[in-house]
């Protein structure tokens, strides 16, 4: 009961914060400067890990699929097809965003939390700057624009990972793999992935910002806010995943 009440209260605070965030920036050039910085940091910091993990997962999915469908009735190119759809439908959006919730989300929560406990946010407010809008809006927009880009990178490198396995091992001929990638291709799956990642990016950035913004206390609370934000945004991402899949597919 108490937990329910608490969650409702949190949600209310979250909505109020969103209202504070989504107002017109005081200075547009300042907003664009911060947006550029945030976007640059996000992409530079995360691209390597996104590509690496996707490469390996693409490779592993290919190997495992091959291992699991050793039926002579199924054509060899099935492996390519299954790898493609697994990556497109679930891995590159949901799993990648769970990973980014851990990496980028915790970063945002601790950055904003630290600014809160060192009174930098108070300093902004006292000057008459809308601190939520100034600090958080560039983060949300940067993530919503560029996480889908990272997701596209993830899809490509995952598929490439499978191709590498096909080329360097004898489990399936590379040409069959490529043929599999192209057969029964539904372009809509790509859009579905990108649409999902818009939502996930919003969840990651706004939930992390909320947890950072409401910190009271010191370093301990900042650490806690950062883990809490990861837990909560992961759960929300999974829930949204179910809902969006039901709606979109």
């Amino acid at each position: 009961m108490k937990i329910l009440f608490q969650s409702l209260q949190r949600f209310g605070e979250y909505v109020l914060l969103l209202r504070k965030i989504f107002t017109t920036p005081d200075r547009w050039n300042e907003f664009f400067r911060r947006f550029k910085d945030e976007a640059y940091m996000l992409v530079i910091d995360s691209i390597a890990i996104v590509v690496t993990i996707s490469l390996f997962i693409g490779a592993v999915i290919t190997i495992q699929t091959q291992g699991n469908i050793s039926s002579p009735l199924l054509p060899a190119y099935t492996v390519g097809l299954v790898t493609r759809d697994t990556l497109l439908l679930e891995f590159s959006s949901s799993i990648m965003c769970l990973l980014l919730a851990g990496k980028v989300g915790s970063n945002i929560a601790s950055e904003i939390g630290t600014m809160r406990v060192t009174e930098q946010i108070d300093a902004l407010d006292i000057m008459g700057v809308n601190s939520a809008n100034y600090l958080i809006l560039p983060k949300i927009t940067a993530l919503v624009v560029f996480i889908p880009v990272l997701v596209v990178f993830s899809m490509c490198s995952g598929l490439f990972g499978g191709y590498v396995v096909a080329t360097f091992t004898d489990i399936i001929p590379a040409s069959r793999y490529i043929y599999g990638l192209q057969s029964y291709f539904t372009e809509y799956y790509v859009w579905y992935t990108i649409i999902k990642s818009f939502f996930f990016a919003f969840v990651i950035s706004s939930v992390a910002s909320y947890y950072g913004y409401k910190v009271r206390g010191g370093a301990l609370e900042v650490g806690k806010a950062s883990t809490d934000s990861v837990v909560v945004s992961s759960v929300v991402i999974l829930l949204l995943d179910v809902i969006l899949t039901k709606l979109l597919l």
Partner: protein
Amino acid sequence: MIEVKNIVKSFDGKTILRDISARFETGKTNLIIGKSGSGKTVLMKSIVGLIRPEAGEILYDGKNVLRMDAQEVKALRCEIGMLFQGSALFDSLTVLENVMFPLKMFTRQSSAEREKRARFCLERVNLIGADRQYPSEISGGMQKRVAIARAIALNPKYLFCDEPNSGLDPQTSILIDELVRDITREYNITTIINTHDMSSVLGIGENIIFLDRGEKVWEGNSDGIFASTNEKLNDFVFASNLFKAVKEYIDDRNTKK
């Protein structure tokens, strides 16, 4: 002049400020003194509007902030400078950018004009040559100077300092105190300073209120503070060993006479 009347504030049912009334005069350094946890920061944050009190009035030159609309509050904010306990400089900006920040957000000045003003403010606080450094690269005393420079960048009418010399050595403390006092006189600012440092109290205490557990129990100035017979104030004033020793010495000498 800033006047507060009957301010009450509580957190989670615990009363932190009990019916505080006080007057803070223009061109003077007004001190709020008291032990840690006595409510100094809460009072200051209520006055500047970061915390909303449950009851009372806060008058800036006669205008009640609690009744102002958003537009008026925003205009007032541009006339307020505040120095936070931990300096609260923006980590991601250099010293010069920190001082230029309020100018960037609230004036239409060109970047050359902003830079000129920022450099002027940095010179005013005697900080030269640290422009390109980041807050984490300079000492605590220098950070305080940058924070003062940032606070005065927009020529404020009101200046608030929350424990401006906490964490500083005694000599730097005095320099910062004197800097704040000089700026207050020079620009005729209404300055309010929170402190628990007796050396500041004696040095710049032109108008003092003493808080004890959220209650105002004494007001006066640095000349009257030793003469007061208020027990709580005496406990606070003579808490340090140095003052205790001096007091004993004086009492001793007086009885011998």
